[in-house]
C-alpha cells in the first residue's frame, strides 16, 4: 500500500433515507471512505444492507440524502460515463446485439465514430480473450463468458473507475474463482480503480487491497480491513494463516450484525 497514490473516490458522511409508507428507513448512514488511484477495494456486508444503493450512489445513479461523493475531488451529481463504468450481477447485455455490438454500444452512446468503435471493441475482446466470439449473440455464451463481455463493455470507454455490483454472484464456484483470477489479470494490465461488491468474504479478501465491512440497518461501515496479502495472488493464499485470520475477523463483524438484526426483528414483532 503506497499512500502516495492520489485519491480517486471519496465519500463524506454519505447517507440515504428511504421512506416506505411514510416511515423513514435509514438505509445508509455516515459512510466515509476513500479509494486510491488503481486500488482494489471490496465491500462486504449482509444482504439487504444497502451495498447496491451505495454503489449506485458512487455511480451518480442515485442521489444521496446526506453527504457527498467526490470523484477526483469534484462532487459527483450525475453519471460520469467517461470516468466511471458500472457492472451488475447479471451481465445486462442487450440480447438483440452481437457481442461486438454490445461492447460498442456505450461508445456509440458516447458519440465515437464507427471505425474507432470497431477497433476499440476488438481490443477489449482480445483483452478478455473472447475475440472469436465477436459475432455471437449473448445467449450463445456461458454465464462466465457473458460476464467477461460485460467487463469488456465496461472497460471499452476507458473509464478510470470500475464499479462492480456482485458481478460473479450468479456464477458457479469454479467459474467464479476463474473470473476472479481473470479480473486480477485485467486489473493489473489496465491499472483501473476497482470498487467491488460481494457477499463472499473469500472473494473479497482474495481480490482486494482493502475490504470495507458494512452493517445492516443502518448501513454503516463498521470496519476497514487491510489484510496486506502479497501480490500476485494465487489460490494457495486462501489457505494461509493471515487469510484465515482476516476472514474470521470479517465473519465475526458480520455475524454479530446478524444477531442484532434478529433481535431487532423480534422487537418489531
Amino acid at each position, binding site marked *: 500500500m503506497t499512500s502516495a497514490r492520489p485519491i480517486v473516490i471519496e465519500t463524506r458522511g454519505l447517507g440515504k433515507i428511504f421512506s416506505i409508507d411514510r416511515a423513514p428507513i435509514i438505509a445508509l448512514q455516515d459512510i466515509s471512505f476513500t479509494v486510491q488511484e488503481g486500488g482494489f477495494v471490496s465491500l462486504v456486508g449482509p444482504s439487504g444492507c444497502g451495498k447496491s444503493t451505495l454503489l449506485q450512489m458512487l455511480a451518480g445513479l442515485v442521489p444521496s440524502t446526506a453527504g457527498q461523493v467526490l470523484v477526483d475531488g469534484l462532487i459527483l451529481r450525475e453519471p460520469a*460515463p467517461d470516468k*466511471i463504468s458500472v457492472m451488475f450481477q*447479471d451481465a445486462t447485455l*442487450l*440480447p438483440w446485439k452481437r457481442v461486438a455490438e454490445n461492447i460498442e454500444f456505450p461508445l456509440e*452512446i458516447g458519440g465515437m465514430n464507427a471505425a474507432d468503435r470497431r477497433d476499440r471493441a476488438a481490443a477489449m475482446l482480445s483483452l478478455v480473450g473472447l475475440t472469436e466470439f465477436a459475432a455471437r449473440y449473448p445467449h450463445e455464451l456461458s454465464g462466465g463468458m457473458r460476464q467477461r463481455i460485460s467487463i469488456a463493455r465496461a472497460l471499452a470507454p476507458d473509464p478510470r473507475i470500475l464499479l462492480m455490483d456482485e458481478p460473479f454472484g450468479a456464477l458457479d464456484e469454479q467459474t467464479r474463482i476463474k473470473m476472479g483470477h481473470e479480473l486480477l489479470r485485467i486489473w493489473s494490465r489496465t491499472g483501473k480503480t476497482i470498487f467491488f461488491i460481494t457477499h463472499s468474504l473469500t472473494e473479497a479478501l482474495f481480490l482486494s487491497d482493502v475490504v470495507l465491512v458494512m452493517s445492516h440497518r443502518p448501513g454503516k461501515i463498521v470496519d476497514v480491513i487491510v489484510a496486506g496479502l502479497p501480490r500476485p495472488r494465487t489460490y494457495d493464499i486462501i489457505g494461509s494463516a493471515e487469510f484465515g485470520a482476516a476472514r474470521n475477523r470479517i465473519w465475526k463483524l458480520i455475524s454479530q450484525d446478524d444477531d442484532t438484526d434478529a433481535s431487532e426483528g423480534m422487537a418489531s414483532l
Partner: protein
Amino acid sequence: MTRRRIILIVIILGSWEAVCRFNIVVPLLLASPSEIIGALIQSWPEYLVALRFTVAEIAVALAVAWSLGIVTGTAAGMIPFLGAAIGPILVSLFAVPLITWYPLFMVWFGIGMTSKIVYAVVSGFFPIAINTMNGVRGLDHRYFLFGQAIGCSRRQVIFRILLPMAMPSIVSGLRIGTALIVIAVIVAEMLASLGGIGYVISYYRSIYATPHVYLGILFALACALLANWGLGILERRFMHWRELQIGDR
C-alpha cells in the same frame, strides 16, 4: 412437403365440389368451389371496391391502435404511479365485450368508416397497451441503470434499451390486437355500414346468394392474412435474435 399440401388441397376441393354436385347438402347452406369462382368472375369489381374499403379501415385502425397502445403501455410500464392508476382500468376494460359499444359509436361517428375505425381501435388498443405495459414493467431495473450509467438520455434509454427489451411482449400484444382489429372492422361492417367486405357478406346473405357469402368470407380471410403477413415482416425485423434463442433450446 409442398407437393403433399397441393394434393391435400385438391382432395378437399374435389370432395367439396362433389358433395355439392350430388346434392348431399342443400345449395343454400353450402356453395361449391365452382360456384364461388363463378361469383368472383361475375362480380369481382364489386369485391375489389369492398376490399379497398375494408383494407383502408383496417390500415388506419392498426396505425392508431398500435401507436396509442405502445405509447400508453410504455408510459404505464415506466411510471409506477401511472401503471398503478391505469393498469387495472386497462385490464378490466379489455374484459368488457366491446361490441356492446358499437351502436353507441354509430350514433357518435355515423354509419361511415369512422365508426368502424373507432370500434376497431378500441378493440385492438387494450391487448397492445396491456402487453406493452407488462413487458416494460417486467424488465430488470438494472437495464435502466445500465443505460443511465453509460450516459443515455431518457429518450435513448426508452428507444435503444427498454422498448427493444420489451419487444417480445409488445409483439405478442400486437398479434392479438391486430387479429381483433380485423375482426372488429368486418363485424362492424356486417352490423351496419355503407360498404366493405362485411357489408357485402351481410347483403348477399340477406338475398340468399350463398356463393357470394362464401366469396366474401374468403376476402375477409385475405384481409386477416394480409395483416398477419405485415406483422410477420415486423416480427422478423425486430425479433431475429429471439428466434435464434428459441431455436437454440
